[in-house]
């Protein structure tokens, strides 16, 4: 139940951040471009969009932290697997579990360092330069994201221990491509042409 909530939250959050950061920068570019156009520029100069870059950076940093946790679940983080692929049975299991626990350990330490840092930050009144949001809120993504990632590593380790399966990301898979695409590029004069020797 909580797990499903976390899954959805992760997915919606990072997809939303990706999309909206794109829109923000696009609008900022449009704004700058149209500020040079007579008539409308009078209205546009009143809008201040200098915060766009900063917002985009914050959004992507948040996306990076939570996306990294999502990536553990989907197995997108690549490693050097030349040894693991040669091993079999117990040794392979042990090495994979070692890797997963190392991941959980590292992200756990980073999360703690981050939490500590945010705690100190919260006692200062540092704000970001353009948006003027308190920096500790911005930096919250490090403890939150890292602890979530640590949890994901443990989760993957547990399911690997039980079922011997790892999440695997297939880079070669594209949805929505069909056979007809192959014919599409070969059509000439309305017909699919054959080869000539």
């Amino acid at each position, binding site marked *: 139940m909580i797990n499903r909530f976390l899954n959805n939250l992760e997915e919606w959050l990072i*997809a939303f951040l990706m999309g909206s950061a794109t829109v923000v920068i696009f609008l900022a570019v449009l704004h700058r471009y149209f500020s040079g156009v007579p008539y409308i520029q009078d209205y546009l100069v009143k809008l201040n969009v200098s915060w766009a*870059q900063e917002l985009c950076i914050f959004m992507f940093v948040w996306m990076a932290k939570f*996306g990294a946790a999502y*990536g553990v679940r989907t197995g997108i983080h690549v490693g050097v697997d030349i040894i693991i692929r040669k091993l079999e049975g117990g040794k392979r299991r042990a090495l994979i579990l070692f890797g997963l626990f190392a991941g959980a350990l590292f*992200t756990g330490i980073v999360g703690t*360092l981050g939490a500590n840092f945010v705690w100190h930050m919260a006692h200062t009144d540092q704000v970001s330069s353009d948006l003027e949001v308190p920096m500790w809120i911005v930096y919250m993504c490090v403890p939150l994201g890292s602890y979530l990632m640590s949890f994901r590593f443990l989760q993957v380790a547990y399911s690997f221990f039980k079922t011997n399966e790892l999440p695997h990301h297939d880079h070669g898979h594209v949805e929505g491509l069909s056979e007809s695409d192959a014919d599409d590029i070969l059509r000439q004069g309305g017909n699919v042409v054959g080869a000539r020797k």
Partner: protein
Amino acid sequence: MNAMIIFTLLILLMLTGMPISISLGLTVLTFLFTMTNVPIESVALKLFTGIEKFEIMAIPFFILAGNFLTHGGVAKRMIRFATTMIGHWHGGLGLAAVMGCALFAAVSGSSPATVVAIGSVVLPAMVKQGFPPRFGAGIVTTSGALGILIPPSIAMVMYSVSTNTSVGSLFIAGIIPGLMLAILLGLTTWWIARKNNYPRLPKATMSERFTAFRESFWGLALVVVVIGGIYSGKFTPTEAAAVAAVYAFVVAVFIYKDLPLNRLPKVLLDSASMSAMLLYIITNAVLFSFLMTNEGIPQAMGDWMIAQGFGPVTFLIVVNILLLIAGNVMEPSSIILIMAPILFPVAMKLGIDPIHLGIIITVNMEIGMCHPPVGLNLYVASGITKMGITELTIAVWPWLKTMLVFLIVVTYWPGLSTWLPSVLMK
């Protein structure tokens, strides 16, 4: 001594198969906790500030743009255009695949994405035409690598981030070597096809060519938006990437209508997770290079090389061999982020142009993606063709040889990379 410990630890951790980002981070933490008195707070700070640069944000935008183009039928129309132009020569569809890759590379910043986009359309068509599957697989795997040499390029953004070189200049510098490699790969294809008498297509009429051009126009125009925008100074590379993403979205959804709106969340999610993976490596690599600089390792290596009397020629041989070996076990982004900060100071001492070094590294990465054990292009191609890695390795060999020759040319002919940016970017 410290350098030895750091590298041994890093390599050991990597060999266990844990994600590269984690092994980088753990190396840094272990070293800091046990061997130095660098305050741990400065590390905590690096964890936040590592990716807080607007230049880095070009990476997620280019990935998003690439995904829209892949799903949006742009690749299909580009191949169709290429087919009408050169499909009647020896190699037919194979040659068109090379040109299609080069065109798609000019709008996409990633090699595997280029292989997926072009390969999944052109390979089934080639098999239908009676080409041996190996031939097509070899072409697409290697030509897809053009994705990171022809601008825009994620690999170049990585290099510029870790060495403070201008992304714009690097992009411009990639144009001539990129076109040259495309022509060389095309020649290899033509040669093999002529020798084996592979099928050719009937020559397209002028009106067919024009129709194909008009249909692919919206995709091709993106090249102008990105490169033209950066070159004329209208956008920064990051802004160009964001504009490209919006443009690609509009083309995929509203103009070509190949991407239904309900698939949008999936595309966003895939792009976000791919970007997050890369950004996570960057964060940890920044941490790692902070450790290296703090221990003075690049400087020590530079001094040692100069004391040995290494000139630029020897140094570049070492660089190439080192990168090709690294390409055997790691994927490009990690290699660039780990190696560039180490190699860069040495290269500067020896008087090598930063742009030239960037192009050399990029070409090395291209080669690394096309051969086992971790060539990402190979895995992608194997996913599309359902061929085993061993068979694919044999399949790519003729084109890989061409790429190795090209690497030597790029390494010892700096003008090839530096001339265009020196003329254009004053």
